[in-house]
């Protein structure tokens, strides 16, 4: 092959590769922006489910809770609602559980920011806290990178991502978003294709009835089966062992701080701004789990809670040691009976007095489904 031809081929090869790289990068970045701002539900489907359930409520809930699957299993909203309605005589009272699987304070802030932006104004917000969810090194950062963090939030969380070894995941999630979220994208495409097929063949013959996916109902909020932890109500020693090992890892070199703490501060500030009373609840934990808290960890956590409550005018109630071990599925997820017991205790000891006090002082006036100062 003549040298000129070879050179021309090489130039063409380079140009082709540059075009391929450019088109690939541009599509990924554009896809990433669409996922961040137009279809966030693809990135964070469980939050989308919660938001849909919240939107279906007849009005803004009076009491809301945010947290993880621990609260998902422990905060039984129907029980709490029924008890509160019976005790307060307020038959319209709405309780909503906005806990999200693998959630923490960063997720809580994300959920509440969204809720406030949508005009939701709960009078009381119950926030799940525990020493590990306030740790400087958050084990959930890998989840947050995939689920809710956008380009503009990255600088704020960069330190926490570095500490939790999630920088590579961050790079993948930001530069290859279509690949990282392919499961949800394919699921949506499949659902859309199935819908179109059903429309096309509706007249032909009725298909086999499909098992419905979990959907939210106005009365129940997020359905029970959304939380994987609650699908089986038996005690699971294997999960207990794995869970304890994970928590032990999480608590190594413990310090309060980082992104989770900043999220808590931001959440409390926003709640104060919106006129929402916050109750921080130390979530029930099994004895083995609590034993991992050394006196130093305990001191750091309780000291921080006291400080936060002083600065933000909120309350901290500690239920970590209130539920017996036989009511746990593993180290931190309550069984159904445990959830009911915790809900009973929390309602009688904390929520009912707080609600009655709130009713008496009545700092807000309800204006067409929203609250205002």
């Amino acid at each position, binding site marked *: 092959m003549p040298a000129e031809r070879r050179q021309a081929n090489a130039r063409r*090869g380079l140009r082709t*590769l540059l075009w*391929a790289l*450019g*088109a690939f990068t541009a599509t990924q970045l554009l896809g990433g922006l669409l996922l961040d701002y137009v279809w966030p539900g693809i990135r964070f489907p469980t939050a989308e489910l919660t938001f849909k359930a919240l939107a279906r409520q007849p009005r803004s809930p009076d009491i809301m809770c945010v947290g993880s699957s621990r609260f998902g299993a422990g905060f039984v909203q129907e029980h709490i609602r029924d008890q509160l309605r019976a005790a307060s005589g307020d038959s319209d009272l709405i309780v909503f559980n906005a806990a999200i699987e693998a959630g923490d304070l960063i997720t809580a802030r994300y959920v509440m920011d969204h809720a406030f932006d949508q005009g939701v104004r709960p009078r009381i917000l119950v926030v799940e806290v525990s020493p590990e969810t306030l740790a400087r090194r958050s084990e959930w950062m890998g989840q947050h990178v995939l689920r809710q963090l956008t380009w503009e939030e990255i600088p704020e969380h960069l330190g926490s991502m570095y500490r939790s070894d999630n920088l590579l995941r961050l790079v993948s999630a930001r530069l290859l978003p279509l690949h990282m979220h*392919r499961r949800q994208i394919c699921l949506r495409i*499949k659902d859309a294709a*199935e819908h179109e097929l059903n429309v096309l063949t509706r007249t032909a013959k009725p298909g086999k009835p499909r098992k419905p996916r979990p959907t939210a109902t106005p009365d129940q909020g997020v359905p029970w089966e959304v939380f994987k932890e609650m699908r089986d109500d038996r005690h699971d020693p294997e999960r207990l062992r794995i869970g304890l090992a994970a928590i032990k890892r999480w608590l190594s070199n413990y310090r309060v701080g980082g992104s989770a703490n900043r999220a808590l501060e931001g959440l409390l500030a926003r709640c104060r701004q919106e006129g929402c009373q916050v109750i921080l609840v130390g979530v029930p934990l099994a004895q083995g789990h609590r034993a991992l808290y050394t006196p130093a960890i305990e001191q750091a956590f309780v000291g921080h809670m006291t400080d936060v409550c002083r600065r933000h005018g909120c309350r901290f109630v500690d239920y970590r040691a209130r539920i017996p071990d036989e009511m746990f599925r593993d180290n931190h997820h309550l069984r159904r009976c445990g959830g009911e017991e915790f809900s009973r205790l929390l309602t009688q000891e904390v929520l009912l007095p707080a609600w009655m006090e709130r009713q008496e002082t009545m700092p807000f006036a309800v204006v067409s489904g929203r609250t205002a100062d």
Partner: protein
Amino acid sequence: MLFPTFKFFVFFCIVFAVYWALPAMLRRLPWTARWPAHRLRMAWLLIASCYFYMSWNPLLILLILFSASVDYVTAILLQHVTTLWKRRALLVGSIATNLGLLAFFKYTNFLVGSAISSLNLFGFRNDPFILDIILPLGISFYTFETISYIVDVYQGKIKPVRNLLDYALYIMFFPHLVAGPIVRPREFLPQLQQEKRWNWDRLQLGLQYFVIGLFKKAVIADQLATLVDPVFARPASFASSSIWLAVLCYAVQIYCDFSGYSDMAVGLAHTLGFKLPRNFNLPYFADSITDFWRRWHISLSSWLRDYLYIPLGGNRHGELATYRNLLLTMLLGGLWHGASWTFVAWGLYHGLLLSLHRAIPWPRWLGHAAFKPVMVAGTFLAVCVGWVFFRAQTFADASVILQRMAWSTGGKSIDQTAFTFGAAGLLFMFLCYLIASFIDLKRVERWLPAPVLGTSMAIVFLLAQVLMPEDGKAFIYFQF
């Protein structure tokens, strides 16, 4: 470390960068400026290949190194020995060592199980047992490569390699190490001596091959697997229509899975300046079973022809001997694929088809272009029947599938969405075949402007990335 994984991507980026940057790196330092850059590059590739293999099982690298050393030494001895019986003894010794290792690791449980079953037929009561033997990855492929090397040296077609590094790299070059293509020493060894020069055109071609292979594997094969697997797991509960669709989809799945891997291997080798042989040439558009074997897994079928069929006598000793040789070659070819009687049956079935194709005096008018679609369809159907034996777990399953293919039987249906996706996959493949057989794709590729070609590559890669299943299925041919 599978090709379509992030781990492999990182591994390859490091290997690629160091490989091409090595001469420049050496030139920068005064005490390394005179080092032989090309030899160091080859050494680097060998280290990378060893790491690639050891990432699966570190100890079994010793097995390849042992096998390679035996052949390396035997080949050098063959050059010095002139006495015929001594040369034959060396050849037999080397082949026996390689086949012995293959037989031990791959066929021990099969042979022991078959022997126990046979004894039980005669009234003995032995419980079947399975020895805990790991099947070394790629053993079937590299064993054939070592045999072809030693036979070629014995026949004087090539000179033995003096440099152990070169020989080890011929066997262990990571793109073809675990699932081929089976590389011939005559094609590969000279490439090890050629100085490699950076070439954008070749890099683009290599990445193009890789992306197409990835698309075939991740998008077509892995997606079709979700339709095929449940049907072959419990064929007795599915209706004839579902069975037919599953068999047709399996034909496409295995083609895309294996040719996808081969494309990726060829592409990776290109990016490093090596050329591997083409392994597939639109096999489902073959118009006879003989033609099919010229187009399917070309590196294996040509190996079987050159190192088994022809040494057995080929077609030189009359019709009966030719049929015997065909049957024997295909039977052993079937056994090569897996230690199971279903693979033996598959090989025997193809041997019978090849013999029948040779024995029947086909009328000349069948060769007319107008009849080609009929011949192609007939061949494809025959091949699909063979795939039933290849994929079924047992003969009982295979017979159920064949019965349900032959007679319309009721049963469970594949759900409508999967059925539509499966049918769409088949149609897509058929259209690709049509385009590839009527259009010279290489010319089209040369004619396309760089932006169009580059964007098309990006789109194919994006589709592969999005549609790739999360659990990343292993390549079917890894088990062989």
